[in-house]
């Protein structure tokens, strides 16, 4: 038990001190007293503290999140519910969200990551969707840091262990490294589900007198104050916070998915809400609050794993694999039969009232009695002071030495930790279960077929933290644009995003400035690309001591592919085809991978994001793909043009001869510059003229850059490297590193 729990069990003398220990400021504690008209008891104080924690209340970020565009004709439900809902046609919706589990994963990588997956799955199936895909965005510290290897092994094991067991394919994600994550890794998990449009379930309670039902696993003393932990800066007290980590039970989750979906096929459910952070507290408040009702719970009826749990412990437990539902009266037996069949706990623990109050009873006494609406309406909201990040000057390519060994540089880039193949990771994820994975990890976006149809979802997660660190606004826009581009590159139409905003301590103005900048950039990109935000999550206080992580707004994008026959992959398909670059190459080296990995510099402004050009080029590429004439497509990102071509060559096992003009730009700027809004297409010679003419008509820059064929990549000046050598280098780093030999 933590110190807080011990005190909570008895009768603490100093409520003021306890409030502070629970993470409530003096002002917030005063507010609790004015809301209740008296001093809260320990249980009530605990409820206030978790409801008003940064993690649950978004008190520092709310003001900024309102700037994100959240609507489009296809958005069925934007932020505010458990997950976002978009119309994907044919009477179907896609439901998705991303969430962080950074702090628990640092403390206990396997279970922290596993329960992160479990939590995000529940957010999605609680809305009536069958989960069809998981993704994850991972940021680790320097590979040389002594903890990194152990953290990777645990996190990957935990994500796989949970996702594989529940039988939802883990189809994509990202994984990069930087010393700024040494003391605070990021583990963001995303789930996408499918439901019928007329069968979406919401959290809003309705119907005074309706039974409140608890299903799933029993409540134990695990994870108490997890939400508050997620809102605290890591320091030396990490050790003391340990018992707040929970153990996941994916087997029970699988049963819970099946049982919930079975009950959802009837019309017995009025509302449903998973018990995530702050468990029974936030789920009951959320349901009652959204319905404008009151709720009465008999805590003696809550299924409990351990004897003698206090009201405080029951309300704050973050035991996993639990759900709270409001059923229609008289449907309890039918629901109970389903949950018993799936060997899950089922208990009617209370009912809805018209009092607008949350009343908890235990052992025949009232353990808490608090008004529902004021708790959320008067939730603290902070306009934290912020300072904009200082702009960086751009890097003149001529100030960066020109390499004489292009092939060597390419090999170094494709085997550096950020670009090296992540096969070692996705091999441990069952990415094929459900037998609808049309594009496995390794490409631009995962493609998962809508079961039983000939349409598919394209899904990706993206963010380039080094850009966000260099310029949060540009980085925020770039992350959204890259997600949009990745979906476009497989031939799909981008529809909407979820996000996970990972930043440092919001009480520091420069961090708040990073957060604000990222949001501003994202908002602009979402608007320009018609790519609204429908759900998301904020994770602040990602600091160790005084170092914050690089601002990392992870973007999870979803698009629809209506015609599977034109689906693109990055793999080159044959010899003798033309390679065409779409988009303007300006040779931008600032904040590039080349600058960091080859020149050993991390300075400079990131590549500018021209949203009009982004839109024009992407729409052009998608339209061309729809004609069926494109053979392969890949967007240009980390490492620039040559890395993109190399990835296409490695995926296809086919080489290419590049005819890159030596003209305007120095070779390293041309080959490794990270200008945005670019793609590489493979087309038959006979289709080349059409492509170039169309591009010209649309005002899109399209340039032939080479011809496919052979076993090597070769370039002007006679440099060459075999595709197999590249592939070996690309595949080798991570397994070698994990086995301790790199």
């Amino acid at each position: 038990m933590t110190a807080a729990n011990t005190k909570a069990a008895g009768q603490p003398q100093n409520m003021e001190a306890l409030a502070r220990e629970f993470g409530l400021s003096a002002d917030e504690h005063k507010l609790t007293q004015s809301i209740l008209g008296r001093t809260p008891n320990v249980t009530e104080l605990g409820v206030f503290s978790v409801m008003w924690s940064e993690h649950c209340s978004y008190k520092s970020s709310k003001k900024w999140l309102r700037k994100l565009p959240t609507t489009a004709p296809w958005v069925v439900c934007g932020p505010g519910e458990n997950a976002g809902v978009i119309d994907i046609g044919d009477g179907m919706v896609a439901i998705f969200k991303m969430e962080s589990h950074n702090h628990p994963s640092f403390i206990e990588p396997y279970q922290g990551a596993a329960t992160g997956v479990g939590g995000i799955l529940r957010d999605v199936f609680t809305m009536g969707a069958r989960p069809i895909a998981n993704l994850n965005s991972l940021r680790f510290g320097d590979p040389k840091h002594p903890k990194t290897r152990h953290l990777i092994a645990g996190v990957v094991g935990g994500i796989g262990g949970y996702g594989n067991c529940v039988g939802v394919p883990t189809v994509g994600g990202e994984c990069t490294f930087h010393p700024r994550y040494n003391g605070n890794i990021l583990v963001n998990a995303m789930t996408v589900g499918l439901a019928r449009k007329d069968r979406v379930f919401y959290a809003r309670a309705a119907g005074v007198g309706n039974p409140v039902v608890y299903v799933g696993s029993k409540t134990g003393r695990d994870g108490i104050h997890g939400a508050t932990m997620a809102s605290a800066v890591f320091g030396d007290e990490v050790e003391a916070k340990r018992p707040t980590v929970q153990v996941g039970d994916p087997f029970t989750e699988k049963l819970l998915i099946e049982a919930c979906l079975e009950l959802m096929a009837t019309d017995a459910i009025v509302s449903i809400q998973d018990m995530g952070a702050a468990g029974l507290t936030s789920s009951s408040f959320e349901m009652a609050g959204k319905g404008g009702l009151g709720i009465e719970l008999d805590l003696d009826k809550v299924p409990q794993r351990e004897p003698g749990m206090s009201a405080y412990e029951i309300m704050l437990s973050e035991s996993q694999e639990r759900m709270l539902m409001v059923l229609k009266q008289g449907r309890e037996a039918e629901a109970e039969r389903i949950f018993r069949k799936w060997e899950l706990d089922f208990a009617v623990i209370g009912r809805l009232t018209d009092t607008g109050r949350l009343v908890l009873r235990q052992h025949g006494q009232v353990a808490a009695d608090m008004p529902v609406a004021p708790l959320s309406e008067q939730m603290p909201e902070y306009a934290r002071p912020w300072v904009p990040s200082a702009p960086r000057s751009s890097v003149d390519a001529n100030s960066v030495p020109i390499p004489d060994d292009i092939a060597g540089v390419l090999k170094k880039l494709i085997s550096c930790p950020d670009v090296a193949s992540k096969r070692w990771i996705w091999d441990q994820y069952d990415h094929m279960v459900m037998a609808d994975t049309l594009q496995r990890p390794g490409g631009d976006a995962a493609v998962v077929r809508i079961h039983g149809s000939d349409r598919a979802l394209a899904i990706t997660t993206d963010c380039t933290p080094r850009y966000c660190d260099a310029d949060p606004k540009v980085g925020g826009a770039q992350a959204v644009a890259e997600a949009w581009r990745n979906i476009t590159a497989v031939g799909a139409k981008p529809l909407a995003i979820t996000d996970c905003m990972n930043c440092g301590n919001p009480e520091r103005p420069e961090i708040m400035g990073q957060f604000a900048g990222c949001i501003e950039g994202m908002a602009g990109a979402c608007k320009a690309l018609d790519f609204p935000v429908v759900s998301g999550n904020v994770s602040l206080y990602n600091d160790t001591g005084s170092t914050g992580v690089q601002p990392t707004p992870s973007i999870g994008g979803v698009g629809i592919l209506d015609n599977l026959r034109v689906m693109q992959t990055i793999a080159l398909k044959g010899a003798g085809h033309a390679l065409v670059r779409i988009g303007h190459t300006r040779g931008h080296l600032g904040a590039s991978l080349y600058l960091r990995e080859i020149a050993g510099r991390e300075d400079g402004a990131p590549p500018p994001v021209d949203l009009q050009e982004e839109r024009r080029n992407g729409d052009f590429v998608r339209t061309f793909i729809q004609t069926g004439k494109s053979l392969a497509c890949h967007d240009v990102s980390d490492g620039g043009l040559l890395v993109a071509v190399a990835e296409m060559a490695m995926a296809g096992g086919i080489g290419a001869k590049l005819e890159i003009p030596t003209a305007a730009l120095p070779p390293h700027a041309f080959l490794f510059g990270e200008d945005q809004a670019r793609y590489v297409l493979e087309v038959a010679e006979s289709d080349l003229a059409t492509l170039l003419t169309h591009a010209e008509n649309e005002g899109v820059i399209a340039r032939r850059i080479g011809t496919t064929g052979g076993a090597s990549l070769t370039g002007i000046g006679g440099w060459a490297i075999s595709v197999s050598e590249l592939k070996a280098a690309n595949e080798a780093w991570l397994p070698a590193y994990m086995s301790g030999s790199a």
Partner: protein
Amino acid sequence: MKARVHVTLKQGVLDPQGKAIANALHALGFDSVIGVRQGKFLELDLKDADTASAEKSMRSMCERLLANTVIEDYAFEVWK
């Protein structure tokens, strides 16, 4: 020298495996089972010359690798 390590989940930490095993035993008709907790058990062969040094390295192995002290407790014995 020989050593044996028992690694068990801390009190209060959910033990999904133990829970599932208990259910399976009930289904098989073993009604006398109240509860099951599952742990790990390791047997080691060591080159250490004496008990004191073996104990010292065992403690360090448990802390650093064999147990995850966030959620697990460990106990070991060492003998010749």
